[in-house]
């Protein structure tokens, strides 16, 4: 937040303008997530973690290695919550070689155990991008064509020590229709940028621990599906009942994201309370803008708008309208 951006209101108070900025920032994040693209839902993701000498730097506290592993712990939990039919694997690279520490699987516990072991592993030597891509490639290559194949590289070093020409590997990666994204801990590297650009992935460099967490967690959501992906019908058995311990993982909202609501100045409409939570619009700063569902035209307050889009993913206004709810389902 920049200093100049904060303005006093007529009564000389700062609070209203701060409230407004926070609200705007929250909404912007929602709007960024434009929802019309087709997403790859069955994901197979390899995390390539740099464990070279550079990871022992202390610019992230306590060290880059510990900080990153902590973030990955959260990431793994969330990933399996939000992507129940996807799989994750972990590869590390140090001393010029790459090693697969955890095979592709959808069991979060296995990955968490692996992360725990990696904490004990001293960071040393140089990383090898080529070797680690090859390792990931060898396993991703054989997956069925209707799945989304992804690699997420977390890279701290400024060099890579490769046995051959990395361009050749890059071509193979591209042919295998794998999307590679890189999150850098130190600086922008040309080779990383090239890889992610060529494969349709994203590239970013973190500025601090919070930013790093944000960047890594961006990969929780499924990426747009590649055009080269095939589609098939898969036979799936549905259980009549399951044992009490195993709660089913259900996650549907990626498929049918809730459309954005229109932002409207509260004074322009006659509705004086939120359709969802009954909150009265009093005209204070938080209520200055209200949000209208484009389909059912019901009015919601700011908090409900955020909650509906981030958590609920369906509009109670539409669900309370017989015409819309029938139409939607067909």
């Amino acid at each position, binding site marked *: 937040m920049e200093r100049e951006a904060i303005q006093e209101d007529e009564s000389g108070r700062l609070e209203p303008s701060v409230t407004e900025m926070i609200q705007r920032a929250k909404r912007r994040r929602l709007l960024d997530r434009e929802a019309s693209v*087709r997403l790859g*839902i*069955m994901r197979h993701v390899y995390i390539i973690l740099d464990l070279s000498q550079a990871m022992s730097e202390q610019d992230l506290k306590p060290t880059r290695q510990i900080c990153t592993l902590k973030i990955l712990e959260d990431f793994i939990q969330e990933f399996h919550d939000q992507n129940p*039919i996807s799989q994750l694997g972990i590869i590390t690279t140090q001393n010029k070689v790459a090693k697969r520490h955890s095979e592709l699987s*959808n*069991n979060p516990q296995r990955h968490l155990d692996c992360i725990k072991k990696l904490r004990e592993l001293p960071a040393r030597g140089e990383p090898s991008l080529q070797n680690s891509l090859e390792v990931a490639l060898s396993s991703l290559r054989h997956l*069925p*064509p*209707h*799945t989304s194949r992804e690699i997420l590289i977390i890279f701290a070093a400024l060099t890579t020590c490769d046995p051959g020409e990395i361009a050749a590997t890059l071509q193979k990666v591209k042919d295998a229709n794998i999307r590679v994204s890189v999150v850098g801990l130190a600086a922008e590297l040309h080779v990383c940028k090239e890889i992610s650009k060529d494969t349709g992935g994203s590239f970013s460099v973190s500025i601090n621990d919070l930013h790093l967490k944000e960047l890594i967690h961006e990969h929780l959501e499924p990426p747009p*599906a590649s055009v080269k*992906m*095939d*589609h*098939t*019908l*898969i*036979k*799936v*058995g*549905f*259980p*009549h*009942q*399951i044992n*009490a311990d*195993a709660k*089913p*993982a*259900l*996650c*549907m*909202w990626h*498929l*049918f994201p809730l459309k954005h609501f229109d932002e409207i100045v509260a004074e322009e409409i006659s509705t004086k309370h*939120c359709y*969802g*939570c*009954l909150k009265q619009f009093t005209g204070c700063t938080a209520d200055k803008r209200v949000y209208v569902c484009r389909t059912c035209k019901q009015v*919601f307050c700011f*908090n*409900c708008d955020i*909650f*509906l889009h981030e*958590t*609920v*993913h*369906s*509009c*109670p*206004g*539409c*669900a*309370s*309208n*017989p015409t819309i*709810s*029938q139409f*939607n*389902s067909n």
Partner: protein
Amino acid sequence: MAGDGCLLVMVVDLHPQLAEQESNVHNYLSACISFANIHLAANVKNTLAVIAANHLETRFLYPQITGKTVDRQKDGRLELLCQVDESIERELRNMIVPDPKADQTESLISGAIGRGLLYIKRQETEDVLGKKVHARILVVKISLDTGSQYLNYINTYLTAQKISTPLDVCVIGSDCGLLQQGADISGGYYHCVQEVSELLQCLILMYQADVVTRKKLNVPPPDSVDYRAACFCHRTLVDMGNVCSNCLSVYCKAVPLCTTCNVIFQTDRPLMKIVKKKK
């Protein structure tokens, strides 16, 4: 927890099929209102919200946006309850409308649950000390289920689970698999009674206690929960279905094109068999 009070959100089904028998209407409404009364009377800090749903709309019955107050006690009832009851009963009656074509419709319960969740969420954000609000939702349902709101239901269940709010379900007549899933996912109770006349006793026995007290009382034997999904083409529950690899739409038989996301399926390849893994 007991001292903190609890917010009860009641979702009451007012489907027109209820109106077919006047005695049922009376029993049904008085059971719902009595239950609300007991909840409010049991603890000073208990609070209540009532949302009704029929096949046309959902409506907040309590608290009311425009507060009309009753003047004086009419009988020996607690004064606060008089006010609550009066407004609820009037509105409930208003919303029961006979409809000849009602057979093909279902009540918009999922919309009402959604609004209830937003209401709970608001109480939580408005709490001065930022404490967790102990809230639960009770759905009383009488109408049949057509499965047309499947997605909305699942979304509300997952939300309830996320904000750790149990969703209790009491259905009258025939079992409702979809709502049973909701109770199971969110940690609430599910029960089915045969007759409207049994409703009040069942509500008191099973749903009056708050979540903590429930652990100290006997529970009904757990039913097995039917987790089958409804197919998108005929809305029937399937044991073995075909799932679109792109959008996970469920079809009861092989189709060449997904009607949800419009992709064309590759048929030259052999279909992969995946057993959906649990855990």
